[in-house]
């Protein structure tokens, strides 16, 4: 990213006075060409001990762009399981951008039941499964059975599953 005076200043203030991130995080889209990258820098500038609090606050009070930035940044941040509830929220929405972002590398902290349902929802909402991190390693028999059932419903209605979902039903020979 090009040198951005506004961002440099905002990052500096986030480190010394974390509450300033409320306004800088919201307005980053108007000051930076790549708002997701800029917002990630702001989050990385927060003192680690207050990071979980502000992640929750910025996500809960964020517009779609801010929510997307929080979810996208999660794998790069020094946190444990604290942000898993944000994934549950994003997976509940029908905003396909948020659903996809919730299934990045941080989703390894999701329990298997929630993860399977999220993958199934991707298929249902036509989110490409290439967005799902660790898909091949994590896909299990129960997910395969859920997808097979969805395929049966679709075929009964004269519709098909997308190829990336069908692939999971066809074990490599």
């Amino acid at each position, binding site marked *: 990213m090009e040198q951005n005076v506004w961002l440099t200043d905002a990052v500096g203030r986030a480190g010394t006075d974390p509450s300033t991130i409320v306004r800088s995080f919201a307005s980053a889209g108007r000051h930076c060409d790549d708002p997701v990258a800029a917002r990630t820098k702001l989050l990385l500038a927060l003192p680690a001990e207050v990071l979980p609090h502000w992640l929750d606050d910025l996500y809960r009070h964020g*517009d779609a762009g801010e929510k997307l930035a929080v979810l996208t940044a999660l794998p790069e941040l020094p946190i444990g399981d604290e942000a898993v509830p944000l994934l549950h929220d994003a997976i509940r*929405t029908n*905003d396909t951008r948020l659903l996809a972002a919730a299934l990045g590398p941080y989703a390894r902290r999701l329990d298997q039941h929630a993860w399977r349902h999220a993958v199934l929802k991707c298929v249902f909402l036509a989110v490409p499964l290439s967005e799902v991190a660790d898909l091949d390693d994590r896909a299990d028999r129960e997910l395969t059975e859920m997808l097979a059932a969805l395929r049966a419903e679709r075929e009964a209605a004269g519709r098909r599953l997308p190829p990336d979902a069908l692939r999971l039903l066809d074990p490599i020979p």
Partner: protein
Amino acid sequence: MRILDPHIHMTSRTTDDYERMAAAGVRAVVEPAFWLGQPRTNPGSFADYFDSLVGWEPFRAAQFGIRHHATIALNPKEANDPRCRPVLDLVPRYLDKDSVVAVGEIGYDSMTPEEDDAFTRQLALAVEHELPALVHTPHRDKAHGVKRTLDVVRESGIDPGRVVVDHLNEVTVAAVHESGCWMGFSIYPDTKMSPPRMVEILREHGLDRVLVNSAADWGKSDPLLTVRTGEAMLAAGFSEDDVDRVLWRNPVEFYGQSGRLDLSDVAGTGPLFEGSSILRGGS
């Protein structure tokens, strides 16, 4: 015909409406926060509503190729309920959002002291956040309400060029024209304003500082009455460029004052290839 509907409550509309609007030339909308028919009783209801105006609804609009922006405020009607007053403390955080292009709808419903206070405080928020203001005018006792509205706007110190006074008619247009504020007209099937009457007002007062909207919501209304007004203008001898000015370039100019209007990909060009495509940025 390309259209930015500067006042429409899409939350109350169906996907069929989005399809018909897109097919008819509506490329962008501004959705003001207002009341939902059923009065709300706590600030949390407003937070969820505001969240949908900067979250779900823009996503929904984008499925149909329509760009969605919002205005945020505690509306005058619900400003009268003490249980909703704390909403005024929620508003500032939303005014920082990228897709929020004005403070609104603010103004008067029944002209109570509570409405006075909410109106004044939110005009000050518009100044503080460098945003335009969308001012609703009362449906009852309208002429008196418009006069008082203009007095409050004047005393607030906000630049009148950053204020639109909405829901005007033949009786109230002259005072707003004289004030330097923008003039908003809501074209309705039976009530507020009709396409033929709108054409007469344009003939008499000109095209400067005029915004034409459908104000379509959960009541009897029609999201295509902006289009019908454009057609009535053409039938009455206005040029295609005149129509583009009223239905596209005027609202782009007004809300563009926020510095946050993002019409990349949807603006295209006007009939004379001089359309102003205001991209994100500015202030």
